[in-house]
């Protein structure tokens, strides 16, 4: 039979043959030491498994042997049945336990100085709390812009200020993160934007006493002006004019002429008050995926069509790619909601908190109106102006709407 190298310890992988205590031809007995092997742990004697005679030695003194390698032949004594060597132990499916690590050297009393990372290795980072980052992401606030004007870590309050739709004194619904309780089956919580819109319109309806004024205006003059002036402006000014741009200019000029419409209701130390803006800022209601946003078109008074077009386009793109700027949170007196390409003849928009009016533009369609006593077919839109009655009465609103209608129907349009 074969006399094999046994596994003498858990960590043993191989051994060295140190010394043969018996020579080929020697009689041997079961349990008698035949050879001394050196393992990773110690020198150990290996005994003969059977009675018999030692045969040829396969691993001489000094040889390195692996577990299970043949050390020598043994001729078993007749009669005594030697136990057949067991089949190799099945490899356990569980992963082998890592060999225990050598004992750690005792810790030095002072920690070794950690090598300072090179300045180049650490990329620049905007410092913002995890909450601030999330709120900025959800509300389209540009953290980089915020970081540019604030030193230290950007926090929730900073982001909310940027997002805030109202002035400091208007009732702003607190930006609350609703604690998540169990959601009833079939109900899906609103997205952050939707939830904010929901809150805003609710507060508006509940706190702003609005009334509406309505006027149908023809848009044929705009169509003519667009055809005449549009190509040149596109070529020279780099922007394609839209209906909105014409409305905006008409609105801006009418506002300049009617400064009472530039007021916003505000709290004067517990009493009703008003703030009057110096510049003509108009909010543009832009539809986005899942909701709407209202970027601010600032200082439109006296601007040319091309300038207005550029501002309008820039704001729309900004919003659609989620990059609001700080100015987009500034309060405005009026917003414009243009649904001329929509399906409703007329609609009443909701005044945003901090604003005092909003102009809704309905579907551009053909209508029959009296002209010089005769019916005429014209193209136009319904304008529906909602105003905050605390500041704007019927006469003021009607006068404003009338002037606006005249500008829209008759121009003139400023090109510079």
């Amino acid at each position, binding site marked *: 039979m074969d006399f094999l190298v046994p596994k003498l310890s858990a960590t043993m992988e191989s051994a060295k043959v140190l010394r043969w205590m018996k020579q080929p031809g020697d009689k041997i007995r079961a349990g008698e030491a035949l050879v001394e092997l050196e393992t990773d742990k110690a020198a150990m004697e290996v005994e003969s498994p059977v009675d018999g005679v030692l045969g040829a030695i396969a691993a001489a003194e000094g040889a390195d042997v692996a577990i299970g390698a043949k050390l020598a032949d043994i001729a078993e004594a007749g009669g005594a049945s030697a136990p057949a060597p067991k089949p190799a132990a099945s490899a356990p499916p569980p992963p082998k336990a890592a060999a225990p690590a050598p004992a750690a050297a005792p810790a030095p009393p002072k920690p070794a100085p950690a090598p300072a990372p090179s300045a180049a290795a650490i990329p620049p980072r905007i410092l913002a*709390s*995890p*909450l*601030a*980052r*999330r709120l900025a992401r959800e509300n389209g606030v540009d953290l980089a812009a915020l970081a540019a004007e604030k030193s230290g870590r950007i*926090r*929730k309050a900073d982001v909310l200020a940027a997002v805030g739709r109202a002035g400091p004194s208007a009732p702003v619904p607190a930006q609350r*993160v609703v*604690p*998540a309780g169990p959601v009833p089956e079939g109900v899906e919580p609103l997205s952050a934007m939707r939830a904010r819109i929901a809150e805003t319109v609710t507060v508006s309806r509940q706190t702003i006493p609005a009334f509406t004024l309505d006027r149908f205006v023809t848009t044929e003059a705009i169509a003519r002006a667009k055809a005449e002036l549009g190509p040149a402006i596109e070529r020279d000014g780099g922007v394609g004019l839209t209906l909105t741009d014409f409305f905006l200019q008409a609105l801006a000029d009418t506002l300049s002429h009617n400064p009472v419409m530039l007021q916003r209701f505000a709290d004067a130390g517990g009493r009703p008050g008003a703030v009057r803006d110096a510049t003509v800022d108009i909010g543009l209601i832009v539809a986005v995926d899942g909701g709407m946003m209202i970027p601010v078109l600032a200082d439109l008074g006296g601007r040319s069509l091309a300038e207005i077009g550029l501002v309008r386009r820039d704001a729309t793109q900004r919003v659609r790619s989620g990059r609001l700027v700080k100015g987009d949170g500034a309060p405005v007196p009026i917003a414009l909601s243009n649904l001329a390409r929509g399906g409703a003849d007329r609609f009443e928009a909701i005044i945003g908190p901090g604003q005092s009016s909003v102009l809704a533009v309905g579907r551009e369609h053909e209508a029959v109106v009296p002209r010089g006593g005769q019916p005429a077919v014209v193209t136009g839109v319904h304008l529906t102006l909602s105003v905050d009655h605390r500041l704007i009465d019927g006469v003021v609103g009607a006068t404003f709407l009338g002037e606006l209608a005249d500008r829209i129907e008759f121009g003139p349009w400023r090109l510079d």
Partner: protein
Amino acid sequence: MQEITYREAILAALQEEMRRDDKILIMGEDIGPSGGPFKTCQGLYEEFGPMRVRDTPIAETGFVGAALGLAITGYRPIAEIMFADFLGVCFDQVVNSIAKHRFMSGGKVKAPLVIRAIGGAGLRFAAQHSQTGESWFLSVPGLTIVCPSSPNEAYGMLRAAIRYDNPVVVFEHKALLSTKGPVDIGGPIPALTGPAMLREGRDATIVASLAMVGRSLAAAELLARDGIAAEVFDIRSLRPMVTGPIVESVKKTNILVAVEEQAQVGGWTAELAAQVTEAAFDYLDAPPARVTLPDHPVPYSPPLEDSVIPSPERIAATVKSLL
């Protein structure tokens, strides 16, 4: 509800349970005719006799290990450790035998035992007799660790622990022994584990254990005067540490302050901070903060000892610094 002290609440729980089940016995130093050095066992010896109320020699390894032997052979022993600091003496029995015997046996033995350890600072007992010990066994699976912060908790948690079929270490606080509070005697057995919200708020979440709970509630009062509404939790159990309600609170307040009466490194507040950060990362407006003992043993001299224990003022100031 009865208005009784923490000490009386412990005694009430022991009496009730020992009357209910004669397999329950209690062992500890001086707990027999003397009623215990903190009088938590007053009258038990007279009522239940020397077989069930056993005065032990000063030999924590001996009688805590014996508790395991009793528990695996059909009894439900309670071992009172006079000062939680002495858990150092029987640490081997707790960590290597009590926590592991069921596991090593392949789930075949059951070890329903309770170790009650009375610890904590504030009474001028100096460094070796003032530790709460509450975080020492935090990394030992197999143990259940609970911390009653009030008389009602002391009563309820002890009953729950005694009825639980696995080893429980109950950390009691010596500075709370004489404090009074409403206790629901005979009421339903509360959950052994899981936190309790003691004060609702919206501006910060404060989590504390043992005597730090009362101080955190006092801190919340101070903060309220400045218009800051803190939400205060008693963590109640350190193993298992149940963080769900605390995470929901932090999602609401965005601020976490955890308070424990142990040194900061390796304390349960560090574990809580890690778990809350993992679960509520996007809701944190500031890093989680910990208010703890400083990194040296508890000093003896009264002004020194008082200065190292987190005060309501220090807790409130920490909250403010994060807002």
